[in-house]
């Protein structure tokens, strides 16, 4: 069984009158258990050269009955060095927020399928603010992946 630990420390010496220091650590388990997550997409790096919205986890079939509501964790980091550049992160086409240069997020992902008639899935997408090239890094650590079946059709 794999062991994955995640830790965060939030600090500020000058935001408040007193120093802020907040820390949390946890082990990533399969949903509702104490069994460690055992699958991952691996850490990916992409260089995006268009301002189009892209699905960064296409290999995960979000509508999968087997893995919807299972435990998945997502890390996304905007590797840009230009503080004016950002990526807009969405889930199911709703904006979560913007990651500016060197910002990251760490969040759970339910891979939910919307019950809405528009057939929206819980895709996590990113949209660069510029087309001049932005690097992002991302990974998903999860307990289940249903890969697309072979499709050799060319049209």
């Amino acid at each position: 069984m794999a062991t994955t630990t995640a830790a965060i420390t939030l600090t500020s010496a000058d935001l408040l009158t007193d120093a802020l220091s907040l820390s949390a650590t946890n082990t990533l388990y399969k949903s509702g258990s104490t069994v460690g997550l055992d699958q991952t997409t691996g850490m990916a790096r992409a260089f995006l050269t268009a301002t189009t919205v892209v699905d960064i986890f296409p290999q995960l079939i979000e509508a999968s009955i087997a893995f919807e509501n299972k435990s998945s964790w997502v890390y996304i980091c905007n590797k840009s060095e230009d503080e004016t550049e950002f990526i807009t992160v969405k889930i199911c086409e709703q904006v979560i927020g913007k990651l500016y240069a060197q910002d990251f997020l760490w969040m759970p992902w339910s891979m939910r399928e919307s019950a809405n008639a528009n057939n929206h899935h819980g895709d996590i997408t990113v949209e660069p603010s510029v087309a001049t090239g932005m690097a992002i890094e991302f990974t998903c650590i999860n307990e289940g992946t249903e890969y697309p079946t072979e499709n050799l059709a060319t049209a």
Partner: protein
Amino acid sequence: MATITAQLTVNSDISDYGISINKSMTLTKAGTNQGLERTSGVQRAYLTNLNHVDLIKGGLAGSPVADMTVTGATAAKVYIKYLSDDTSKFVRIGLGNAADGTTQTANNGDGTFFEIGRLYGNEWMIIPWNGASNVGDITVQPSVATTADEAIVEYIVFFE
């Protein structure tokens, strides 16, 4: 101008190559190097039933971030933790609007709810926050909560 730093560390032996994330970010205002300078402070929500409710409303009266400027050109970060030692319990964290009542509804882009993910006992998350009115509320719904066994969710918002 304040300096707020978030340090994320993730280590895993999930494969022979493992995963190691060691990343620090300084929380800044949108498009600048100036630090965020406002905060909700550390808040705790005590949930005593299974209702699906707003945890954080963007820029509304009565909200811990009532003075937040909600536009597409501002920056905010949200940290949320579910305080429980029981890893079988969870809270659903959603995006949308639970103000229409206690009924969990599916996203349709018009101000209802879509589940981002679930925080099981002792898990936490940190995300940027758009805070858009109507569709940008961060919602929460516990899997188990009673007056005798409250679900406690801790959070803090940093914003400009």
